[in-house]
């Protein structure tokens, strides 16, 4: 039976892992390669590394980091942050990334999804959507860490991304990210039902129950989480053990 995936996410700035609370304050938490290796050994199913460096030096450091991660870990990993072109994606593929994730660049130029998928395959492209709910109850994609709303309605944009060649959708609720208050499960369930490709839930996990809920009620195929792992609240093995105990298929 296909297992639900648990994916630790590491935000990297200048080669070091950091994690923001609602994407604003940053607290440094550790070495990116060491942490990835530790998560893989604990049973993480995949890893995501997001580059949040703002400088060219930071970007170059990230490509070097991707190379070291590829040398070290024996599970798939996805990289993202600052990918604007097919060339950017190619550089990260050459460095050893299994998948890339694109967000704002896909909103600015949706053709990018098809360009990358056409060259490297659908499985290589994860389209990330940071969405916020509006006063009318509709969800819209945002850019710039949730600060800029766009006219892309969540469901329509996710379907468009799939049609253009995305292999997975990574949906983060900017209303929940970093709050540790749980995921908006009904929105995930409706989105998962509307897609023919896997849906990864992100942002908001405060407990194993939250993750269990989004993988069952929320019908997500995978859950991405950062803070509950980085601060040692739970190990990946503890999370998966508890999920297995509640009957959710996970790789132990």
């Amino acid at each position: 039976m296909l297992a639900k995936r648990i994916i630790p996410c590491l935000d990297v700035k200048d080669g070091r892992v950091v994690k923001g609370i609602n994407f604003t304050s940053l607290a440094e938490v550790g070495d990116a390669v060491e942490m990835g290796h530790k998560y893989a050994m604990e049973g993480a199913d995949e890893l995501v590394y997001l580059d949040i460096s703002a400088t060219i030096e930071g970007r170059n450091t990230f490509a070097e980091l991707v190379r070291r991660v590829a040398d070290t870990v024996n599970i798939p990993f996805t990289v993202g942050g600052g990918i604007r072109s097919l060339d950017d994606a190619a550089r990260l593929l050459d460095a050893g990334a299994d998948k890339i994730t694109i967000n704002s660049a896909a909103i600015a130029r949706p053709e990018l999804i098809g360009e990358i998928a056409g060259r490297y395959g659908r499985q290589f492209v994860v389209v990330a959507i940071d969405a916020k709910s509006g006063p009318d109850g509709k969800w819209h994609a945002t850019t710039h860490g949730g600060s800029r709303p766009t006219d892309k309605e969540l469901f329509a944009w996710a379907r468009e991304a799939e049609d253009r060649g995305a292999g997975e959708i990574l949906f983060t609720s900017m209303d929940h990210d970093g709050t540790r208050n749980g995921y908006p499960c009904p929105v995930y369930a409706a989105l998962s039902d509307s897609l023919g490709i896997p849906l990864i839930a992100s942002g908001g996990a405060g407990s194993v129950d939250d993750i269990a809920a989004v993988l069952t009620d929320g019908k997500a195929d995978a859950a991405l989480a950062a803070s509950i792992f980085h601060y040692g609240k739970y190990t990946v093995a503890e999370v998966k053990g508890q999920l297995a105990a509640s009957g959710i298929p996970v790789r132990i």
Partner: protein
Amino acid sequence: MIAVIDYDMGNLRSLENALGRLGAQCIVTADPDIILKADRVILPGVGHAGKAMENLKALGLPNIIRSLRQPVLGICVGMQVLCRDSEEAPGVPCMGIFDAHVRRFTAAPGRKVPHMGWNNLSNMESKLLKDVPRNSYVYFVHSFYAGTCPDTVATCNYDSVMFSAALRYENFYGTQFHPEKSGLAGEQILKNFLAL
């Protein structure tokens, strides 16, 4: 020396890294002489089966590969093109080592396509899978699959579709999953291949 066949079908770095972690020397090549002389040959591959056959033909490799007598391992699309044919490339004969047709998964509620992630192995019966615990999870990413056939040496079930997770015919082995990305189970499988 292990020859990893380079025919422009995806990134070979993760496979090179995985072999490197096992202390194995490999050479990434499309040179028939090197491939013929190698102790082991790996045919990786991510992408379109039709494109994969086209690239192999352009390099003059299908007959070279068919003639190999050392252990050969096809991974993912590399395994699929060792089958008879694929629905992904109608009318294009593949290399026909494994007696299987490759079909497309039909999407259904609860069965998203691609089949992506960790799924478990059943009916394991091959030296390739020696010391791999029963029901081990391995990592899959694919939209097409080889049905079960006499060459099947491990199966996997995706939402009631039973398919070949691994195939074997004489010195030819194939895995639909990616051993190079399958954690400790994958490392054991690559180790077994190196020890054949």
